[in-house]
C-alpha cells in the first residue's frame, strides 16, 4: 500500500523556546488506522496541530497524494480532506444534531436556512456510515458517546478522508468504546484513513494497523501493531530501560506519615477516575505507584496535595485530616510535590529561575522579613541552589523558559526538596530529561528517604520505579490491582500484565498496602 500522506522533517519551536518537534517524519497509508503514541509533551499533539493547520511548523514539508501542501489554517486542512475530533468537543450545545453536522457548510440559500434540507443531508451522511442518532435532538441532551459521534459526522460531512481522533476513548465508557471501534471499522472499510492518538495500548492493539511512537519531540519508531508487544511500545515511549544503578540500603519502614482511606474522585462527567483507593505511606520508605498514564494517578496526586477536593474518603497526613485544607496549609505541614505537568503547573514560564524557586518560600523568615522580601538574601540563596542542584544557567535571573526540560526539572526539585518536607509526592520526576539529571534526582530522593522522609513516587518508567521504590502499587482504571512488598522481587513482565489490566491480585493481597 502506498503512502497517502507524508510529513517530512517537521520542526516546531514554540515562541517560548520549547522544541516540540525535532525533525519528525510521519506517514500514513491509505485506509489504515494509525496509532500515534507518546507521553505528554512528546510532541504528538503539536504534530497533529501542524497537520490540521492550527500551528505552523518552523520548517518541514507535508505531502498529500504526492502533492506538497501549505496548510495555513484548519479551513485549508478541511479543504484537503482532513478532519479532527478534538478531545474536548467543539459543538454548539443549544443546537440540534443536524445543525451541528452542517455547521459552516449549510446547504441551501444563505438567506433562508431550511432545517428540512439540513436534516435530510445530515440523515444521509448518518445512514451512509451506519450511525444510530436522531438528527433532531439537541446536543445538550446527548451522552458523551453520542456527542463524539456528532463530532465524527461533522468531519465526515465536510468530506474528511483522513480523520484525526485525539484520545477518543478517554471520555468513553467501555460499552461506548466498543461502539466507537465498530464505527471506526466501518469508516476504514469505506476507505477512510484514521489517526488514532491514545495512551491505551490495549485499545491500540485491538484496532490499529500501524503505530508511530514519539518521545522527546522525535519519532522513535514506526511498526506494524502486530509485530510489537505492548511492553515494547511502552519501553519506546518512556525511553529504553537504562541501567539506573541506584545505591540504596534496604528500607527500615518507620511510622505512618500519610494515610489514604477509601478515596474516590469523580471527573467533570461524574465518572469516577479514582475508585475507593486506600493505602498507607511510612517514613523512610519510597512507595511506588506504577501504571499507564490516565489510570487515576493525576487525581490521586491532586487530591493528596489539595489541588482538587476528593469526592469521598479521607486523607490523613501526620494524623491530621487534610481533605479540605488549602494547598498552602498542606505544604506547611511538610508535604512537597513535584508535579507531573511540568510546564503547565510546575513553573511560571515568564518568571525567572529565582522567582520560580522562591514561590513556595514566601513565609520563610530567612528570606522574608515581615512580608518584605530580602532581595539580596533571596538572590544569594537562589544562586546557591543553582550550583547545589547543578542547574545550567548563567544566573538565577534568567527566565526559566530559556532552560532545557532537565534543567527546569532541577529547578523544581531544588524548590521542593529543600523545603524541610517529610513527605514528597514525586510525579514523573525524571520524565523526558537527560540521564545525568535523572540520576541526580534519584540520588536526592534516596537521600531524603534516608533522612526519615517518605516518598510517594509515580512513574511510567518501569525500570526507574522498580529500582527506586521499596514497595510498589500498580494502578489500573482508578484502582490498585497489585501490591508488592519488595519492589525488587517483581519482574517488569509481571508488572506489565497488571498495568494493562490483564491480571489482578486478590483483595487480600492488595489490602497489605493498608498496613
Amino acid at each position, binding site marked *: 500500500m502506498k503512502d497517502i500522506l507524508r510529513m517530512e522533517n517537521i520542526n516546531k519551536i514554540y515562541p517560548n523556546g520549547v522544541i516540540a518537534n525535532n525533525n519528525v517524519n510521519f506517514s500514513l497509508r491509505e485506509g489504515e488506522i494509525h496509532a500515534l503514541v507518546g507521553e505528554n509533551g512528546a510532541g504528538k499533539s503539536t504534530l497533529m496541530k501542524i497537520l490540521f493547520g492550527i500551528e505552523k511548523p518552523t520548517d518541514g514539508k507535508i505531502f498529500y497524494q504526492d502533492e506538497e501542501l501549505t496548510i495555513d489554517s484548519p479551513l485549508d486542512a478541511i479543504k484537503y480532506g482532513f478532519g479532527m475530533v478534538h478531545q474536548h468537543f467543539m459543538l454548539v450545545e443549544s443546537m440540534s444534531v443536524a445543525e451541528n453536522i452542517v455547521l459552516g457548510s449549510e446547504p441551501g440559500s444563505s438567506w433562508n436556512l431550511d432545517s428540512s434540507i439540513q436534516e435530510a443531508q445530515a440523515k444521509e451522511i448518518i445512514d451512509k456510515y451506519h450511525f444510530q442518532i436522531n438528527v433532531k435532538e439537541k446536543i445538550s441532551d446527548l451522552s458523551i458517546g453520542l456527542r463524539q459521534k456528532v463530532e465524527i459526522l461533522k468531519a465526515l460531512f465536510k468530506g474528511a478522508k483522513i480523520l484525526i481522533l485525539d484520545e477518543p476513548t478517554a471520555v468513553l465508557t467501555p460499552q461506548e468504546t466498543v461502539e466507537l471501534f465498530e464505527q471506526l471499522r466501518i469508516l476504514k472499510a469505506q476507505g477512510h484513513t484514521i489517526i488514532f492518538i491514545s495512551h491505551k495500548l490495549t485499545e491500540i492493539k485491538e484496532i490499529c494497523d500501524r503505530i508511530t511512537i514519539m518521545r522527546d519531540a522525535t519519532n522513535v519508531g514506526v511498526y506494524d501493531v502486530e509485530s510489537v508487544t505492548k511492553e515494547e511500545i511502552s519501553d519506546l515511549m518512556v525511553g529504553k530501560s537504562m541501567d539506573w544503578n541506584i545505591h540504596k540500603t534496604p528500607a527500615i519502614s518507620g511510622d505512618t506519615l500519610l494515610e489514604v482511606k477509601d478515596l474516590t474522585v469523580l471527573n467533570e462527567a461524574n465518572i469516577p477516575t479514582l475508585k475507593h483507593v486506600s493505602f498507607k505511606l511510612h517514613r523512610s520508605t519510597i512507595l511506588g505507584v506504577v501504571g499507564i498514564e490516565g489510570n487515576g494517578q493525576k487525581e490521586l496526586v491532586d487530591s493528596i496535595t489539595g489541588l482538587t477536593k476528593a469526592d469521598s474518603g479521607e486523607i490523613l497526613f501526620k494524623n491530621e485530616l487534610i481533605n479540605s485544607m488549602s494547598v498552602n496549609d498542606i505544604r506547611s505541614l511538610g508535604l512537597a510535590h513535584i508535579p507531573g505537568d511540568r510546564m503547565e503547573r510546575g513553573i*511560571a514560564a515568564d518568571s525567572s529561575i529565582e522567582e520560580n524557586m522562591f514561590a513556595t518560600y514566601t513565609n520563610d523568615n530567612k528570606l522574608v522579613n515581615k512580608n518584605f522580601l530580602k532581595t539580596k538574601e533571596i538572590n544569594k540563596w537562589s544562586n546557591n541552589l543553582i550550583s547545589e542542584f547543578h542547574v545550567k544557567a548563567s544566573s538565577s535571573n534568567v527566565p526559566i523558559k530559556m532552560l532545557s526540560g532537565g534543567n527546569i526539572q532541577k529547578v523544581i526539585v531544588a524548590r521542593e526538596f529543600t523545603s524541610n518536607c517529610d513527605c514528597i509526592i514525586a510525579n514523573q520526576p525524571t520524565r523526558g530529561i537527560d540521564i545525568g539529571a535523572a540520576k541526580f534526582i534519584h540520588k536526592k530522593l534516596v537521600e531524603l528517604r534516608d533522612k526519615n522522609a517518605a516518598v510517594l513516587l509515580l512513574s511510567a518508567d518501569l525500570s526507574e520505579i522498580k529500582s527506586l521504590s521499596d514497595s510498589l502499587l500498580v494502578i489500573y482504571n482508578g484502582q490498585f490491582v497489585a501490591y508488592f512488598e519488595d519492589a525488587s522481587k517483581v519482574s517488569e513482565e509481571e508488572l506489565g500484565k497488571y498495568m494493562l489490566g490483564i491480571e489482578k491480585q486478590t483483595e487480600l493481597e492488595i489490602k497489605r498496602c493498608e498496613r
Partner: protein
Amino acid sequence: MRKLSFDSKFEIIRFSVAILIALLLSFIIILLVSDTPFLALQKLYLGPIENLRRFGNVIELAITLSFAGLSIAIIFSSNEFNLASEGAFYASGAVAAMFVLSNSLPAIISPFLSILLGGVVGAVIVTIPAVLKKKWGASELVSSLMLNFIVLYFARYFINNVFKDPSAGYNATYLLPETAKLSKIVSGTRIHSGLIILIVTVIACVLFMEKTKWGFELTQVGRNRQFAKYVGINTSAIVIMSQVLGGFIAGVGGAVETLGMYTRFQWQSLPGYGFDGVIVAILAKNKPRYVPIAAFFLAYIRIGADKMATSTDVTSEMIAIIQGIIIMLVAATAFLSNTRQKMLVKEVRNNG
C-alpha cells in the same frame, strides 16, 4: 550591567519600531492635510516645550495619567480586565469635592482626609466587579463597564442637586474652599502638590510589586494561575487584593485631580482617565516603575496636539491616530512575531 534577556531585547525593538511607525504616519498625514505642515509638526513635537506654562500642562496631565496608569497596571497584573477605575476616578473626585464642601477642616487635614476618602470610594467601586466575578462568575469587563455609568449618574445626582451652586451659571458645585485645595508648587504653572503624592504612590507601588510578598504573589498569579495554586498561593485573595488596591489608587487620583486642578467640581460625564490608564499600563507593560514615563509620553503628545490645533489647521484629533497606532502595535503580540521567531530560532539553535 546585567545582560538583557531575550524578551527585553525584543520588547525594546518592538516599542521603538511602533513609535517610529506612528510618528512617520503622523508626518505623512499632516503633510497631506495641512497647508502649513511644518508649522504643525513643529507645534506638535516642540509645542509642549515652548514655554514653562505649556510644559506645566504636560506635567499636570502626566500626574493624572500616572495615577490612572498605576491603578490599571496593578489590576491588570492579576490578568483581570476590570475597568471600573474610570467610574472610580469620577466618583472619588465628586466625593472629595462634596467632603470638603460639607465641613470646614483646616488646611492639610482637609485635603488629606478628602483624598483618603476618595481612595476608599475608588477601592469600593473597583471591588464590586471583582466580587461579582468571584461569587457568580460575572465577566469583570462587562460589569465594570456598566458599573461606570451607574456610578456616574449616581454621583452626578448629588453634584447637580445637593451641591449645585445656582450662581455658577452652569452645572457645578459651590467653589471649593481654599483650605481644601492642593497648593501650587511651581510658579508660572498649575503644577500642584499632587505631584508629591504621586511620587510617593509610585515609590509605594514599585516597592509593593517588587519587594513585598504580596506583589510577588500577584505577579505569579498573573503569569500562571495554575502554578500559583500549585505553590500554595491563595489566588482568589490575591486577585481581589489587586483590584482593591488598583481602585484605591484610582480614587486617590480622582481626588487629587479635583483638588489640584479645579475651583469647582464640574465633570458632567466620565473623564476618560480610566481608559487612558489602560493605554499607559500597556505602554508600561504593567510595571509601576515605567508608568510615569509612559504617562509623560502620552501627556506630551496630547499637549502637543492641543497646541498644534490652536495654532494651525490640523485638529487635535490627529493625536488619536498616533495614539491608536502605537497602542495597536505595542499590544498586538503578533506584530513583528516573525522577526521574533527568527531571532528565537537562531538563539535556541546557537545554545544547542
